């Protein structure tokens, strides 16, 4: 198992229970979408899987290692093999796109190489290749503050693609993109995962995107797993239960066939 959570709970500092007794097992190369209403704990679950947060109770095993039983140095080495795409990419506004993308490999580079890379980008070709897959290579030397929200999200994805992790976690990776671009970007992510045998876990707001791109769906509500099944078994009743009291996303739009039109914005 690549990722294994055993009765994992997470309580934030303000005594809010974000996750309660989560049991999940995800195998190597699997592609899983996490859906659920806002505040259900999707981000917390991904942060837990990324070993960014320590569970308040329960066990987590990542790539065969119990992350929180390792020394800090070993954990950093483990973390270098996990990539997390953030919903709002945490990139300094005045950093150049090329530096932001190359920062993906900081966990694998020595300090000397990292500092040298700040003075002069050492792998312009690599950064360009990662950006080109997202149709953003023309922005290679732009400053991140000049980009739109959707472009910035794609820079965040390009950074993780450049990192080339064994586990790719994505927290609402396409929330700032229009539907067509969002679908296109998700298919790039899942193709990358398939080609490199990378385990992909993404949380998504849009149910239709999750059903269209992911073979396995985890429904999360109030910090608990409501269902965990193949996407073709996700029924209308399950979604209604998941989003009860929430406005369910219009089912007529769901599973709309994706067009091949690729916008270059």
């Amino acid at each position, binding site marked *: 198992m690549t990722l294994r959570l055993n009765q994992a709970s997470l309580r934030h500092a303000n005594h809010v229970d974000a996750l309660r007794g989560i049991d999940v097992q995800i195998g190597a190369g699997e592609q899983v979408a996490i859906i659920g209403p806002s505040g259900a704990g999707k981000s917390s679950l991904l942060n837990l899987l990324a*070993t960014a947060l320590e569970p308040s109770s329960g066990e987590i095993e990542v790539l065969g290692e119990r992350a929180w039983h390792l020394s800090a140095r070993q954990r950093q*080495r483990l973390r270098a093999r996990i990539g997390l795409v953030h919903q709002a990419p*945490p990139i300094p506004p*005045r950093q150049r796109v090329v530096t932001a993308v190359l920062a993906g490999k900081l*966990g694998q*580079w020595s300090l000397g190489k*990292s500092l040298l890379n700040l003075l002069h980008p050492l792998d312009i070709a690599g950064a360009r290749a990662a950006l080109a897959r997202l149709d953003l290579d023309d922005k290679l030397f732009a400053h991140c503050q000049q980009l739109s929200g959707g472009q910035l999200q794609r820079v965040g994805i390009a950074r993780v693609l450049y990192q080339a992790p064994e586990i790719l976690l994505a927290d609402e990776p396409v929330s700032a993109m229009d539907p067509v671009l969002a679908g296109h970007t998700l298919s790039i992510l899942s193709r990358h995962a398939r080609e490199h045998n990378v385990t992909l876990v993404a949380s998504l707001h849009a149910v239709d995107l999750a059903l269209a791109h992911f073979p396995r769906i985890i429904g999360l509500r109030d910090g608990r797993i409501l269902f965990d099944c193949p996407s073709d078994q996700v029924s209308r009743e399950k979604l209604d239960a998941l989003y009860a009291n929430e406005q369910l996303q219009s089912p007529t739009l769901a599973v709309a066939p994706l067009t091949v039109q690729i916008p270059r914005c």
Partner: protein
Amino acid sequence: MLNTDSRDPAAWPRLLITVVAVALLWPGIQLSELNPGVLFQADSQSEMGRFVSAFWPPAHDQAFLQLLIKATLQTLAIATAGMALALLLAIPASLLASRALSLSAASRAGVPSLTGRLLRWPIRGVLIFLRSVPEIVWALLFVRAVGLGPAAGVLAIAITYSGMLGKVYAEIFESTDQRPAHALLQAGSGRLAAFAYGTLPNVAAELLSYTVYRWECAIRASVVMGFVGAGGLGQQIDLSIRMFAGGEVASMLLTFLLLVLCADQLSRLLRWRLT
């Protein structure tokens, strides 16, 4: 204002803080024996007038100007060398004292672990000690150790300013958005690399402008230390005041104005380049 449905929970604390601030200010004025009325009495006004009238015209003969240029360069050298030495100590100390490089904070919502917090205290203590002793006292100490001259001024500035720079740098690192550095730490990067990629781009302009401002302060401080024999413009001002050469004092004050103006422009230029 204070009926239950439209009550601001912050209203009482704010009122209380205002009252406490005023209550503390009043004895402060009493203790410092401040009485602005004295300034407007006739005899103190004529006394000040005599002192200032001697300042005109500023001295500008050849020999004095040469002396002035030499003293100015010495002052600049003292300030710059002192700052350079201070930075050598301040940069590592600020990195050690700041929570911005805490690995445990990245996975604990920004709060470092208890040991991390305890280990940062001694560094903060050293910085507090370095800056709590005024530079003039350090200068008096070093004048005894290395003799009269600029070296004492350089050492005094280096010690005091490393304390100030270290403290403020550490606070600047903490005051900016921590998420970029935390995200890098969570992706396995080392602390220094995460700092250089996640924090530094956000704080570079602030750091530079504060450093240039401190350099400007170091120029002023080196003048004060000149009074105790640490060389530079200060020693010349001291001599000129003792000789009642008001014109020379005026020239030196004008030089000063020019130096501060230059520092200000430099800071603006650097900020403009970085934003």
